[in-house]
């Protein structure tokens, strides 16, 4: 499960930080394990994500997933972000996850979508 790429993104995050000002920002947590993620994004005139950053704390799975996701969405339109799903995250991580750890992996996508679309209860939709 702890593939090199996951440990690498966990230990050396490329996208960690906050953006001020930002066009969208959202924070949420997974109270069961204490993971907390905030994602900030800036959108250019053409509606594409030009910058993104994440902050927070959590396990290697949630943090590396947040790092990879915020890296991957640069240049995507908000419509394209809307289409991202569980399968996308799992493919990005390259691992299989049980129900418990899936929540860790999907927290960043949940935060991103909630920030961009204002949807607060995406969990069921995602799982």
């Amino acid at each position, binding site marked *: 499960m702890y593939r090199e790429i996951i440990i690498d993104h966990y230990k050396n995050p490329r996208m960690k930080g906050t953006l001020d000002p930002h066009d969208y920002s959202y924070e949420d947590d997974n109270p069961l*394990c204490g993971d907390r993620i905030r994602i900030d994004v800036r959108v250019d005139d053409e509606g594409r994500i030009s910058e993104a950053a994440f902050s927070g704390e959590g*396990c290697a799975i949630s943090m590396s997933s947040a790092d990879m996701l915020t890296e991957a969405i640069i240049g995507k339109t908000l419509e394209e972000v809307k289409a991202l799903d569980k399968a996308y995250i799992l493919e990005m991580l390259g691992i299989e996850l049980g129900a418990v750890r899936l929540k860790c992996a999907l927290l960043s996508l949940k935060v991103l979508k909630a920030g961009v679309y204002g949807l607060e209860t995406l969990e069921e939709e995602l799982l």
Partner: protein
Amino acid sequence: MRSLSGAKTLDVMRVRQDFPVLARETRKGVPLVYLDSAATAQKPRTVIDAMTNFYETQNANIHRGIHRLAEEATEAHEAARKRVADFIGAASSREIIFTRNTTESINLVVFSWGRSNLHSGDCILLTEMEHHSNSVPWMLLAEELGLRLEFVPITGEGLLDLEAYARLLELEPRMVGFTHMSNVLGTINPVKKMTEMAHEAGALVLIDGAQSVPHFAVDISDVGADFMAFSAHKMCGPTGIGVLYGREALLESMPPFLGGGDMIKRVSLREFKANDPPYKFEAGTPAIAEAIGFGAAIDYLDELGMDAVHAHEQQLIGYALERLAEVPGLQQYGPDAEKRGGVVAFTFNGIHPHDLAQILDDVGVAVRAGHHCAMPLHESLSIPATTRASFYIYNTIEEIDALIGGLHKAKGVFG
């Protein structure tokens, strides 16, 4: 293993033979090292067989049945109640109410005794080390009635602050509720002394015995508490059945908790007369096979001897604390071995407890990660979560070595 002193000692290798699940591997070539008994204990063959045997030879609903099977099932169910009463030193079986689990037992006290005895402004005294099951039900009732909830703080060593406890008793709480043993810190609280102090202050006492009754001898008549809750599944018994011990006079005075069959003497269209305790509090068909399995679990523990069980766990926790202290970057929470049971929660090198538990799972070591249903306690320790290893009768020194080995592996991955 080092030898134990005392009359009855526990032969751990023989004990392990009694637990079928311990023979399995978690994946090919990786034996199971089960260090999660504080969450639920494994079940010996005798418990599994007792339940299977019931379903295969006696299955019937209990009470009021005239036929042979119903009679046998009723007898077996009530014999289990008697086993529980004797095991904890209750004066009579009438003081043993079967519930679903510790949580339901506490809810029963809160909503039966609490709702009918408490009024706006009344104080309930709990502690900062309670499992959510002994705080959230009180929060619900506090919201409903306007109760005042106060909490005994913990010391840096992980013990209850008894001076603060004495001061808080001056608030004249109506009920004091505390855990006998913390499910995170392992702290064994001085329940007899605390009960005496509470009674002197005019309060009733509810003890959460979920982590104590399975692990050492608890004599409720000696402790003197008014209520005590615990679960079968943490003491080698099945899930789905727990116990509320209550002093008989109190149970007599309390209104029913849930309504339905079995808890009544007679019913007319608009009224009912409640049954006597314990049946008054047992609405509907109970967990019959589970009660019988529970009885078998108590037989099993009795056979080992609770003092031998405790001595074995003392040896394990002593060794575990020694070994964990040698691991750089590891911080364990809770008091010295002699003040605690076989539970140790820790943080390690900033590795998230979920990641740590996952890597330990790779080497077959089953531990728990998170807040262990004690979020306020973790808050007071200023940590979001811990990894917890907990021991029982079937654990060995070698398994603690396996835990230490797993920690070193985790350090390699995240180092």
